[in-house]
């Protein structure tokens, strides 16, 4: 049997406590990371990925010029996000950020609506427009550069 003096026992406890703490922390972190990541898609990627309704993700693209329609007497807005290949209708209820403009880049966070499967609509709960008028998602930028 291995005999340990007081100092060594103490070191052993340290080590055990440290390992336990680390394992616990890592577990908690990975769990909450898994819960709280939002995948980012361009419209074509989003259509390909085929996520179920209610699964949150971010959709980034250009606000199609001329597509923004406001509902009367409500704060409901409809517009189309495009990556110049595919287009997706987006519905949002609330106030749009200052830099949200037709022709500019924007990111919508939300999920697929449940309504009709034939014509997919993205229900946004949050619209992010970067504080820089020249912003566009990287995938889209590369798409544009190819042309």
């Amino acid at each position, binding site marked *: 049997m291995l005999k340990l003096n*007081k*100092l060594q026992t*103490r070191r052993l406890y340290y080590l055990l406590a440290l390992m336990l*703490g680390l394992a616990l*922390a890592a577990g*908690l*972190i990975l769990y*909450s*990371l898994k*819960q*709280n*990541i*939002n*995948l*980012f*898609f361009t419209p074509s990627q989003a259509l390909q990925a085929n996520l179920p309704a209610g699964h949150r993700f*971010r959709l980034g693209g250009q606000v199609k010029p001329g597509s923004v329609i*406001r509902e*009367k*007497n*409500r*704060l409901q807005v409809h517009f189309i996000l495009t990556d110049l290949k595919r287009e997706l209708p987006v519905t949002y209820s*609330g*106030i*749009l950020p*200052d*830099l949200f403009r037709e022709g500019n880049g924007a*990111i919508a966070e939300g999920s697929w609506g449940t309504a009709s499967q034939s014509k997919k609509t993205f229900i946004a709960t949050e619209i*992010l427009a*970067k*504080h*820089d*008028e020249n912003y566009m*998602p*990287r*995938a889209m930028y590369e798409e544009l550069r190819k042309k």
Partner: protein
Amino acid sequence: MLFSLYYFGTALIYGALGCAFLQCLLPFYGYFSKNKYCLALARPCALLQSLLIANAFLLLIIAFISNDFSIAYVAKNSHPSLPFFYRLTAVWGAHEGSFLLWIFLLNLWTTALCFCSKDWDQDLRALSLALLGLISFCFLLFLSQTSDPFAPIANAIPQDLNPLLQDPGFFVHPPMLYAGYVGFSVVFAITLAYLVKGAASSHWAHIVRPWVLAAWSFLTVGITLGSWWAYHVLGWGGFWFWDPVENASLLPWLAGAALLHLVCVVEKQGRFLGWALILAILTFSLSILGTFLVRSGVLISVHSFANDPSRGAFLLLLLAFITGSALALYIFRSLKTRAAPSLFSWTSREALLLMQSILLFTAMATVLLGTLYPLIMEATGLGTLSVGPPYFNQVLFPLLLLTLLFMGWAPFSQWGLSGWTQASGRSAGRQLLLSLVLAVALTLFFTQQWNSTVILKLSLILWVLLSVKTAFLKQTTMALAHIGFAVVILGIVLSSAFSKEREVRLQPGETVALGPYVFQFNDVQGEEGPNYRGVRGSFTVLRHHKKITTLTPEKRIYSVRSMVMTKVDIYPGVFHDLYVALGEPLSDNAWSVRLYYKPFIRWVWLGGLGIALSGFLALLRFARRQT
């Protein structure tokens, strides 16, 4: 063009580059060849470099004041119609200028070190200056090669300062934040100088402590002001968004706080030296990482203002080089020295401080992971994603509870083996119980609801506030800092639990209720500013049919960049803020309007300033003890 500022500016920067080179090289040569004269040259080199950089910085300010649009940086960030005050802030409004500010502040810190190190060992002083010279050299090289603030341009059209930065808060926030970031390079330089000499001991902690304190206090002010700026400029009513740029400033703050707690133990008891040295190195690395994250453009952030991907590579390389070599040196040194084994009680003060530093370090690591995770995933081709605020809130919540628990314990603890006595245990238990009862009573009285998370958080905050009074006379600055922290958390907890917000469509004459308040939308009028035009709405706020105030939020269009900006109006108060932001014009004269009721939000910033103030107070006492 012959006498353009460009030539002066470039000459100054290259001059400073030369000085930095000598400031780095001579002391190292002097140290290894035992040449006293070379060692002594570190100080004049450093002072000359500071003088040159100060002049370069002044030159850039003059360029902005005199509207010298032959300089590309000025043309990109200023305009003849820009008010004088904002021309000053435009100096650090974008990448090149803020980098010059970074280097300018580094030189200020270096100058401070020159004057505060008179009674240090000559080797130590020269080596510290040499390492600061090395950092300065790297950054000056970067500045002159990739982002020259004095680069000339012909026939440029002035583009005005980003309207978001046209705010008084922006005058103080970046210098304070950078002073904090850069301050940790002094800590790093001293630490590395000790490691080069191979003589790190509790004396290191004694020397380095005021510098940690100063840098960390500046960082605290910077973060607090940044949060306040985000609250009243971005127009979303929040004070913290878990945005990568914000996280970048929080990382060195958390590591610095961990270091600060540990340095106390090293200084007083000589324990945990190795861990403290690693923290000192990491804190500086995190400051550089912060600069990298903000400046490189690798992040999609709501406010990364100036970025260019090509610049990222340099900063990342520098980061890897500095951290790698420092840690290698540390490992090399620690293999040779073996600290004497020491015993202490698990309830002693050193155990507590160690625990606190581990908690703060863990918090830092989780924030770092959440911030870098999207980057790692994208770089390895595993997809583009973002980590949402819930991650940070969820992970930090248990850490925060533990931190508060230990903070409340702190005043009852003793150094060494004695640790926890029965009397102190009983008194701590009583306080804990009292704070729990108080929290339940307060929550039930004010909200008439049982909200267990709020009660839990509130009782721990009260526990910190109640227990700290025993330490108030003996450890005033510690007590103040802990009170400040508790106040910050109180502000965060109460404002996020009891905020009310509404987004509505309003026509002139209509009213909307928010809690006990009624907002009446009167009208919208046009207005003209120096470099913008816009509209100003008018809202009368009533409570129980009595008028409280009139709020006038604005919507502005800055003509040069044709950028739309929301200017919110706030009715501030100690216990609550009322906050109105105009959304967009809709049909029939109606506007979309955002209204917030934010209880205790000011406490977040008051507490933050309190923490910083206690840091400066401690510094003052430190200075008095020296003389």
